[in-house]
């Protein structure tokens, strides 16, 4: 359901280059200095656009922000991850010790 275009009023994510590579602060590590500094913001689209095109949005506090469209209805993808049995085992071992079940 990855939509590539938005219509006015859609909740979207935009991005904007804040500092171009080469215009970064003095003293940043080489790998960082070779990259642009980018900001991503979300809001309601104020006109139609296709991903990659310029777009203005209205933020949750009513400010107009300009950038290019990155995503329509951007999804939170963070989660609890995979189980970590090493951690579970260590926890149960400690519990057994406190309960006097050996160890």
């Amino acid at each position, binding site marked *: 359901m990855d939509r590539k275009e938005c219509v006015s009023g859609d909740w979207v994510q935009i991005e904007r280059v804040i*500092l171009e590579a080469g215009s970064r602060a003095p003293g940043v590590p080489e790998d960082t200095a070779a990259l642009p500094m980018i900001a991503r913001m979300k809001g309601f689209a104020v006109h139609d656009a296709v991903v990659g095109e310029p777009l203005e949005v209205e933020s949750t506090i009513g400010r107009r922000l300009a950038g290019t469209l990155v995503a329509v209805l951007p999804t939170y993808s963070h989660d609890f991850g995979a189980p970590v049995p090493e*951690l579970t085992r260590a*926890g149960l071992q400690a519990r057994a010790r406190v309960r006097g079940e050996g160890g």
Partner: protein
Amino acid sequence: MMGRARDYQSVMQRREDIIKEALGLDYSRFARGDMAFDYEAMMREVGYSLEETRTIQRDLGVGDTPLVELRNLTALVRSFAPSGMGARILLKDEAANPSGSFKARRAALSVQRAKEQGYRGVIAATSGNYGAALASQAAMRGLDCIIVQEVFDSRMIGQPEIVEKGRKCEAYGAEVHQMTVGPELFYYMLLLLEDTGYFNASLYTPYGIAGIETLGYEIAEGVREKYDRDPDAVVVTHAGGGNITGTTRGLMQAGCQDTQIIAASVDISGLHMAGDADFNRKSFTTGHTGFGIPFATWPDRADVPRNAARPLRYMQRYVLVHQGEVFYATELLSVLDGLERGPAGNTALAAALPLAAELPREAVIVVQESEYTGAGKHPTAQLTFARENGVAVRTGDPADSVPGASIVIPEEVEQVRAREHSLDRMRTSLIRNAVAFADMDVLGPQEIRFLAEETARDETFVTGTLESLGIRYEMGSDA
């Protein structure tokens, strides 16, 4: 405002004026010569007594968090501590605050100040829980909130913990700016302050620090009430320094003369804070040495002219733990004592396990905070992300771990250690940094006295250090 140059150098040159406008506080009033300043006068600028601060916070549902005895973790420590040793471990459950961390205390006073001064909104640059706290407090008080977060590496991938904290800020209605790695976050925040005229709700203003004093005070009250003694030790997760500064000031106001103040950070030495490649190779986004050491040795690197967080004035010990030890402590807190909390806030808890074993059984050691947990802010989320980013996760002796390359989860509690980090080394760095920043050739009595306060040592320590660094000074009478 229109037509002003917006490039990095130009904006940074205007920083002092922008900050002054965005705080309504003139820091030059506290200056005493080229190096020293009157710290207590700056703190008095807050204008609320501790009791008044408590009232403000209570009205907002902030503070008065439970002080929980961790009976099973205490029993676990006693299973290996020498005979007669193994202090009671208590946890100040700060996750019970409105936004899920002690940062609500800091945000409450910042927003109070912004509101009183007539600002329409507040801005902070933070990847941490403070963003959520500020957004929550701003929502309560009807102010706009903008949060600037360092989130992405150049692949536009973000740590699950930071992504979650961004989501939380958005949940409270804040406008969130998510940035790629780099210290120019500060430059961007200055631009936003200039564009909006909002309040700079920095973590490091006197308000941001005074708000934490209630936490130290509540710990003293709670321990006295339940155990009829002062806390023997308080362990504080240390990053920017506000936590240890505010908590200790609160304990001191409660009259806890003999309580030992121990700072704890996660050791991520070797990883560059501003490096794109290193950014996602650490599993902690705060509470680590990447903030803890630089902010202790040069507090005024912050986004205000004079940082109200001055950790070396307050910490009496500084101990480091490994990432795997903190995940382990987080697991134990859940499985043994029935409290599922976020990992970063459990840094002090990990350190408290070996520290409790050093104290007698009748003693009380307080772990001074916990934070909320959830998707992203959880050991399984963090360890999955670490594995995806090429970091090995295994069990064994955490001493063998290498930040950025491996995370080693202990198999037994005895493998958790609190490793001392030399305070005198940090004090020496602070003195070196203070002299370099003030750009003075010869220090006088005023500077020596100031550096003694800054390092919590006497003037003999300061002059001895200056001599070892080859810095000239004069002891005569004050000019």
